[in-house]
């Protein structure tokens, strides 16, 4: 490799450009799909693009797994003046989750979208899907605070469109999309106000540079206001209880493929942004001094775990129940953050991933049931587990992982979370975590009961879902089991990410040394 500062001007090999390709590939696929305007080409292009993203994300994840990071300078302009893409253990992990979910959901989407969305919208649908992937990946990969806002809006705007596509089955998808648009825009605007305050104080937009300049600014009222705006703004995107009101309707009425993708990635990317700002930009010390974790995020997380789980128990619709369960699971992730320890953050990162794959299985199950039963109310999916054995079994695996039964991915994240509680001698918290998992047993059992212990509804089509839907579902289901048994990969990656985050801006070092470190990374 060339000398440190010149690497990015002289980066000639393809591997040097992986961070930007990660964004560019889906970003360019979207207009190409529209340009060709061919229904038969749209899906293959979208699929190849997601597959390439996955390959890139995997390469990036492997190359930063030792705790190092890659800094990519856009257009050769060195940060803090230029925009920087920065890949480290924490965001490579989330990138991998997004790319993997997109790749798994794509084959599923082919049949599901054909069933749920009118033909004339297909090309535009896949174009929007690609933009959504671009936005989410951009939010995660960028090291520039304003860039986060721009990508956030790219992903949000495409998400509103994707959600509204459910209107051909149920017109409430339109109002769900509208409500999401209003709340999402308020959230994003709050976030951009926060960025404005930070820029006012520091005069920079580069996150690492910002972190350096914010050192010792803990008493500054502007910085505190910025922190509040950013946490509330992103809290809306995360659907952090009680800012979750858009989520149940949006997940329930969106097309199944969209719900699967969003549930597994969108809220996760937002959680990543909150963590990144809390621990890297604002520094752990600052966050600790504001007491927000103990007095606001922690209690709200606990409330989410119980309130949302209780609401989930009383639902009559499988899809809606899963939406409420998502809010509860986000509670676990925020609880990990609120514990303010490396183990707690590890739990958050692990749960982020594990819950992603778990919800992917379950929502794909919902999509398959939707195809055969027409709707997912419990009385209509009754007995479908018997006539759709593969789908039924995958849903059971997903359900077990949601509860956190040993041997599934969900167990690992809850185990780490309980460990984090014990580390701080919070034995009552460990009991609370277990108690709320027991609520999950109830709502998962209601589904299993409906699927297996009742007679099939006469109106449903008594046939297994097509292979193209079952196969991705099982890929995700097997991932749930695999990551529940072999925890090395996931725990190591999450622990590295958490250590980097807890180290504050030390994990992001100064700009001058960043380039040098990046050079050795290659």
């Amino acid at each position, binding site marked *: 490799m060339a000398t440190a500062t010149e690497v990015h001007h002289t980066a000639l090999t393809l591997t040097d450009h992986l961070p930007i390709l990660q964004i560019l590939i889906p970003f360019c696929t979207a207009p190409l799909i529209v340009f060709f305007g061919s229904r038969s080409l749209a899906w293959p292009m979208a699929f190849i693009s997601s597959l390439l993203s996955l390959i890139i994300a995997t390469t990036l994840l492997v190359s930063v797994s030792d705790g190092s990071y890659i800094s990519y300078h856009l257009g050769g302009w060195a940060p803090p003046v230029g925009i920087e893409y920065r890949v480290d253990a924490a965001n490579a992990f989330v990138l991998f989750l997004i790319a993997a979910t997109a790749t798994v959901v794509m084959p599923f989407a082919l049949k599901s979208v054909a069933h749920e969305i009118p033909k004339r919208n297909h090309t535009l649908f896949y174009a929007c899907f690609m933009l959504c992937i671009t936005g989410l990946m951009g939010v995660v990969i960028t090291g520039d605070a*304003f860039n986060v*806002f*721009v990508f956030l*809006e790219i992903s949000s*705007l495409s998400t*509103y*469109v994707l959600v*509204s596509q459910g*209107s051909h089955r149920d*017109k*409430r998808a*339109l*109002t769900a*999309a*509208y409500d999401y*648009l*209003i709340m999402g*825009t*308020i959230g*994003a*605007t709050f976030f*951009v*106000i926060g960025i*404005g305050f930070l*820029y*006012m104080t520091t005069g920079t*937009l580069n996150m690492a540079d910002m972190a350096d300049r914010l050192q010792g600014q803990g008493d500054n009222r502007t910085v505190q206001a910025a922190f509040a705006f950013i946490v509330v703004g992103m809290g809306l995107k995360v659907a952090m209880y009680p800012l979750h009101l858009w989520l149940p309707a949006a997940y329930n009425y969106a097309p199944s493929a969209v719900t699967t993708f969003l549930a597994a990635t969108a809220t996760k990317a937002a959680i990543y942004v909150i963590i990144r700002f809390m621990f890297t930009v604002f520094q752990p010390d600052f966050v600790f001094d504001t007491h927000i974790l103990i007095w606001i995020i922690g209690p709200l997380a606990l409330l989410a775990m119980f309130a949302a789980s209780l609401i989930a128990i*009383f639902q*009559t*619709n499988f899809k809606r129940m899963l939406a409420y369960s998502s809010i509860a699971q986000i509670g676990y992730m925020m609880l990990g953050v609120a514990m303010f320890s490396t183990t707690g953050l590890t739990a958050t990162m692990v749960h982020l991933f594990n819950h992603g794959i778990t919800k992917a299985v379950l929502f794909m199950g919902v999509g398959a049931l939707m195809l055969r039963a027409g709707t997912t*109310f*419990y*009385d*209509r999916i009754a007995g479908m587990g018997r006539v759709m054995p593969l789908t039924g079994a995958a849903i059971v695996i997903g359900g077990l992982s949601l509860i956190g039964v040993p041997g599934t991915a969900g167990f690992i994240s809850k185990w780490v979370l309980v460990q984090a509680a014990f580390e701080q001698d919070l034995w009552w918290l460990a009991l609370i975590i277990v108690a709320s998992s027991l609520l999950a047993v109830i709502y998962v059992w209601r589904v299993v009961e409906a699927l297996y212990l009742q007679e099939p509804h006469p109106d449903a089509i008594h046939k297994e879902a097509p292979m193209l839907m079952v196969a991705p579902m099982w890929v995700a289901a097997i991932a749930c089991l695999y990551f529940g048994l072999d925890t090395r990969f996931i725990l190591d990656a999450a622990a590295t990410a958490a250590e980097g985050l807890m180290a504050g801006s030390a994990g992001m070092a100064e700009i001058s040394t960043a380039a040098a470190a990046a050079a050795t990374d290659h």
Partner: protein
Amino acid sequence: MTLEFFLGHVNYWLFIILMMTGFYIVVSRGNYVKKIVGLNIFQVAVFMLYISIGKVTGGTAPIFPTDSQGKIKVDPDIVYSNPLPHVLILTAIVVGIATTSLGLALIVRIREEYNSIEEDDILEIEAAMAHAENEEHGSAMGGRA
């Protein structure tokens, strides 16, 4: 708080007033179009905040002066305003337009389906739909819903 302080920060006071006006409209109005208008005011207020940040006391427009031949003549004595917030806001304006147009497009579709753009009417229709669903699926489940 002196008068000087108040007048010196007049942009920021206006930003707060405009922002809260927009926010209030979004929350209080039931008409979907009015909500979008409120949202727009809310976003525009933020543009004002950013542009205020860019102001440097005594600063002029950030354009290098040229001599008679049209060559750029860099003069280190001139104080320039910060152009970066303006550039950021250009992006934010584009985002704002996209949001507004998407919101309005959704309203058109909502009007087609519900024949109303008033939140009260729509909530009533949706409540009736939810009630019908509960009736159908709840009773099928033996009233356990």
